[in-house]
Each structure stands twice: as C-alpha cells, then as structure tokens.
C-alpha cells in the first residue's frame, strides 16, 4: 500500500477513496441482483411454486441472465417525451440510493465517511430519490406514468415526515446524529437493550413508512401494476433496469438503516460467549437479511392500499403517533425513569 502511496503522490487520497467506493458499490450491486433472486425464490415458496430454477444451479445465475437481457434491449424513447429528462430520471433515482451508502457503518471502524450528522445526511439524500420518480412520470409525457408520478410525489413527501419523526426519537435516545454512536448507544446485555423495545411505536412507524418510502407492496401505488402500470411504464431496457436496481438498492438501504437504528447494528443478540464469537459484520448482514425477508413477506401477503388510504394512514395515524411518543419520551427523560430510554 505504501508503494502505491509513493507512486501516486498527491493523487493517492482520491484513488484510495475511489477504491473504497468500488469496494462498497460492487458488493452492493451484487446484493441487489441477489435480492431480486431471493425475492422470486421466497415469494415462490410462499406461493406453492419453486421460483427460478433453470439458469445455473438452483437458478442462481438468473439475475445475471436478467441483467444481460435488459442490457441488450433497446431503450425506447417515446416521441413525445422530453429526451434529456427522460434519460436523467433513472440516474436521479439510482444516484441517491448509492450515495447514502457513503455514511453507512458496517462495523465501528468500517465506514467510508464517519461524519457527525450522518443520519441527517441520509435523510437529505434519500429525499432526493422522489425527483427521479416524478421526473420519470413527467418526462414520459404519457398518462399512466404521469398518474404514477403524482401518486409517488404525494406519498413519499408525506411518509418522509412520519419517518423523520420516528428518527427524531432515535436521536433523542442516542443523543447523537452519528450512526456509529447510535449503534454504540444500544450496547447492552442482550437484544432487549436495542432501540426497538423502548421506541417500539416509532420502530413500527419507521418499518411501515420505510416500506412506503421505497414504494414496495402494500404501498406500491406508484407502480400499482394492476391499476396504472407504473411511473416507469414507458421505460425499457437498461433505463428500466436502473429503476429496478434503484428500488432494490433502496430496499437494502432502508433494511440496513432499520438494523442500525433499531436492531442494534453489528451488536450480537446476547453479549456473551457463543454469540460474541461471530464478527459484528455478520450480525449486521443477518439483521439486514431479516428485514429484507419481512419486506418480501409483506409483498406476498397483503393487498395493495388505495392511494388516498395511504395518505390517510400517513397523516392521520403515523404522524400523531410519532408526535405523541416523542413527547412521551421527552417527558420521561426528565424523570428518574429516563435511563430506560437511553
């Protein structure tokens, strides 16, 4: 490493950061590919069928075949579409889903940018994703995608608030905006010290609004394939694939966030012998997989909400619940029982 450092001289920090970015993004994209595979397999078994099993052993090469197929396909640009915005939209969707990973810690040390306000950074970045969706619907100049964009804009904006309030509870409990500090604050004897228990209502609100945030069933009204086909109805080939990748990258992102914020990140289930032997990184992966499994399970089980019902749920249920619980936590912290919430 020192050899490279001397070779590149002043460029070394840039190159080293790029290497780290690749080290995060490459496994992430592979993860995205295999989340699609896992989704098809898991939902397949839930639906008494077996899912993909033709390409490669157990169908393991299926995501690669799908990716190749989409890359080979033509990107059709509708004649009435605004070409520049049409092509910009998938990028705008994908970029935030990847940028947010810059501040995600995998272990206390393993993090690309351990900044103090990492939670705020994530909030800011993930809010950008909706622009991609809105732009896709608008630039397509087509009626169904336009409806999808309208729905998505309204939905994401309102769930952002509920989600934000749920996170305020976490930062009140942890007294920090830094993700590493938040996880460290959850350290305790067992999983009962993680924040899902003291902040249980917020945990529920966060889990549900994160499903809404990433446009997954039962909140997939922006896509709503049986109603309006989706905001990306006019997209094909790689342009469509980028939306697809963004959706799954976002899924992994919110799963990671819920693991870090409420499920103790890399902390083991119990803080004693056999459990502490497993490295923290694998604990984190296991928790992410668990949350992802929940997302898939939701999709296999629930019917889809109607668009106005989603809004009602967001504004009339989640936001009041979070506000009340925030006040409650704030009040309790001033009493001798406050240690329960730290």
């Amino acid at each position, binding site marked *: 490493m020192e050899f490279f450092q001397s070779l590149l001289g002043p460029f070394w920090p840039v190159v080293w950061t790029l290497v780290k970015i690749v080290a995060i993004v490459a496994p992430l994209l592979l993860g995205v590919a295999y989340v699609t595979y896992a989704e098809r397999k898991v939902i397949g078994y839930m*639906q008494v069928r077996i899912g993909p099993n033709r390409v490669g052993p157990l169908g393991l090469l299926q995501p690669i075949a799908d990716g190749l197929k989409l890359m080979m396909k033509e990107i059709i640009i509708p004649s009435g579409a605004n070409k520049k915005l049409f092509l910009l939209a998938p990028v705008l969707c994908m970029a935030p889903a990847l940028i947010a990973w810059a501040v995600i810690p995998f272990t206390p040390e393993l993090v690309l940018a351990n900044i103090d306000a990492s939670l705020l950074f994530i909030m800011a970045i993930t809010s950008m994703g909706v622009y991609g969706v809105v732009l896709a619907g608008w630039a397509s100049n087509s009626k169904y995608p336009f*409806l999808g964009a309208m729905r998505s804009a309204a939905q994401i904006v309102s769930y952002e608030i509920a989600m934000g309030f749920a996170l305020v509870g976490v930062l009140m409990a942890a007294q920090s905006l830094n993700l590493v500090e938040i996880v460290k604050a959850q350290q305790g004897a067992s999983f009962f010290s993680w924040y899902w228990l003291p902040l249980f209502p917020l945990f529920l609100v966060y889990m549900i609004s994160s499903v809404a945030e990433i446009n997954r069933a039962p909140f997939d009204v922006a896509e709503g394939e049986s109603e309006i086909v989706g905001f990306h109805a006019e997209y094909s080939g790689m342009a469509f694939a980028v939306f697809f990748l963004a959706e799954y990258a976002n899924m992994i992102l919110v799963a990671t966030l819920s693991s870090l914020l409420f499920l103790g990140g890399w902390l083991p289930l119990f803080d004693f012998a056999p459990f502490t032997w497993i490295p923290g990184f694998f604990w984190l992966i296991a928790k992410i997989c668990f949350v992802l499994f929940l997302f898939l399970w939701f999709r296999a089980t629930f019917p*889809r909400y109607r*668009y106005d019902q989603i809004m009602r749920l967001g504004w009339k249920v989640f936001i009041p619940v979070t506000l009340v619980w925030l006040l409650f936590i704030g009040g309790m912290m001033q009493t001798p029982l406050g240690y329960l919430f730290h």
Partner: protein
Amino acid sequence: MPEIRNYTLNFGPQHPAAHGVLRMVLELDGEVVMRADPHIGLLHRATEKLAEHKTFLQSVPYMDRLDYVSMMCNEHAYVMAIEKLLGLEVPIRAQYIRVMFDEITRILNHLLWIGAHALDVGAMTMFLYAFREREDLMDCYEAVSGARLHAAYYRPGGVYRDLPDSMPQYQAARMPRHSESDIKLMNSNRHGSMLDFIEDFTQRFPTYVDEYETLLTDNRIWKQRTVDIGVITPERALAKGLTGPMLRGSGLAWDIRKQQPYEVYDRMEFDIPVGTNGDCYDRYLVRMEEMRQSNRIMKQCVDWLRKNPGPVITDNYKVAPPNREAMKSNMEELIHHFKLFSEGMHVPEGEAYCAIEHPKGEFGIYLVSDGANKPYRLKIRAPGFAHMSAMDEMARGHMIADVVALMGTMDIVFGEIDR
C-alpha cells in the same frame, strides 16, 4: 385563465387489469372517476351467427368458448334449450352428472374470480393458491372429456360418456426432478375412480376456502379496498338486470337453481347466501360461501352417483348416436349414426328460452328453430353483459384503483360479453 378539463384515460384494452380486452374510457378528476364508458366488441367472434350455419351438435364446442372459465355451464344451457324444443327426457344419471359438473364449474369459475380479483387488488398470492385447486378440478374435466378447458362433454339428451373408473396419474418428468415418494404422494388420491377423487376433493376443499378467508376476510387492507366500493341497491340491481352473485350481494335471494329448479337441483340440499350492503365485500363473501355450497352439492351428487348406475345419454337415436357395437352389426343403427353426424338432428319448429344459474348469473339461450337441422336463430343472454352496463353507475365517484376492484367483483370474462 385556461379552461380546466377532466383527464381522459384510455383504460385498456391492453391493461393488466382489463380482464382480457375491456376498453374503458375513464373521465377523471384527479384520480376520481367522473364517468366510465366501457367499450366492448374486441373479442366478438359471432358465435350466434356461426350457430345458424352449423348443425345443433356442432355448436356445442362453441358454447365452451363463450365464458371460457365456466365451460360446461354454457353447454348446459344450450343443450337444455335443444332438449326443451325436442321434449326430450334426459336419463336421471346424466342429470346428476350434469349437476355435479355444473358445481365443479362453479368452483372453477369462483376460484379464478377470487384469484384475479385479489390480484387486481394487489394480493398476488391468492392467485396461485386458487390455481392449485383449479388444477384438481381441471383434471376432472380432463378425465371425463379429454380436454382441460373446452370440454364439449354435454350432449343433447345427456352427456358424452359415463364417468371414468380411473383417474390419470402423475408421472415423473425429467425437470423439475421429483422423487419417487413425491410422485407417490401426488398420486395418493388418484388410485380409485373419478368419484373417489372428487369425494377426496370435497373433503379437502372447505379447509382451502378457510385458508383463503384467513388471508382476506379480516384483512384490514382488503376490507378497506372492498367495503362500500361499488354499492348497488337491490332496486338498481334489478333495473340493471344484474343476476347471480351481483344481485345476491345486494340482498335478493334470487337463484335459478332454487326459483326454477332444473335437472335435479330440487333434490339437492344447499343454501343461497345473500349480502346486505351490495358492495364488493358482500359480493366477495357471497361467492366464498357459494363455493362451500357447491362443494356440498358435489358431495351429494357423488353419493348418489355411486349407488345408481345407469345410462347417461338418451336412447333416442335421432338425437344421440347408437353405441358402436350395435352400429357395427346393425344396418338401422349405422344409418342413424351416419345421418346424425352428417345431416344432424332436426329440432321441431318452435322457440325456447332456457336459463341456468351460471357461476356469473343467469345465462340463457333463446333458440328459434324452423324445423331444419340448424337453429334459425340463437340468442345468448350473457350475465356479464348486463353487469358491464352497470359499470358506469357503480364506478362514478370512486377512484381508479376502485375501478379495478369493480372489474374484479363483476367477474368479467369477455368471451361471453362479446360473444
């Protein structure tokens, strides 16, 4: 200031929820439907006109293709109309077989309906669960007629042949690899006769319906999506000519099987479920209960059919072919066979309307004969056509997502609407 106009959306014919080829022009205010204008005719195949150029027997398979998810029920109305004109008595065993297959068909239809309806509302798992059970029933179709969908099993004067003594068995395919024990398990209820298989099904089926209800009936999202959606009052339902579950969902216990029993329905014990509010949720409950009742009827038919062997088609050689043995040895029978399959049967002059309680509602055949070997006119009364006409009234003021739920609840199949 520019004029504000409603958003006009062309819903279908190429839409995942259009149930085939429905094209609907929706006038939207935001997402709220102001007017729904269904356009039909994209699946028009001129069945009624074709029937005027075919012998009576040749039109039976066309009936399968009307409502292609309740095949035998369509045939049933058609052959009953012919029998009515001929004044023909159908052997009692054939009547039981017909009733049993009508109920199998009703379950087939309702299973497809619940699958498609739930899929439209977003619960995709229901679809595959429903198809798992459909598979068993289609095997019954196949065992009895040789075809899984378009059976052509009912004949004027009875049914094509008696129930088989054995069920087809699963065999190992190269892929996916099933072990010997898997195959054995899949064949475990297929060793006896077809009646054994159906009886086994009637025992399993109620638990399956329970499973569906676990997934949907008390599901908050499902209720939010269906309760108070597409409410239609009993008066309006009658005025619009709605029949079947669409009418019973509004609280009117009208069922042709009870009101004007045909075949042996008067000997069957079953209940007619009715709703109270006339919304999508009530119609859902009505159809779920109908599946249980159909199951009951099937069981009664199986019990009777086990005990009472007999002929399954009339011995009137002007209508039904003689058996092959007699045909090979006897001139008279040979001539009958030849005449029947070349010229076809002659139906006396007159007109008849025959309606049955089809899974979707009242399915009727109006037949006019001038005494020739072809119908002079055949008119098909398709329940879905009347349901479609209520679409505008039911959809007004609801949102796009509800239109999709409405199409599900109407159980639309374009084969019968466009004919």
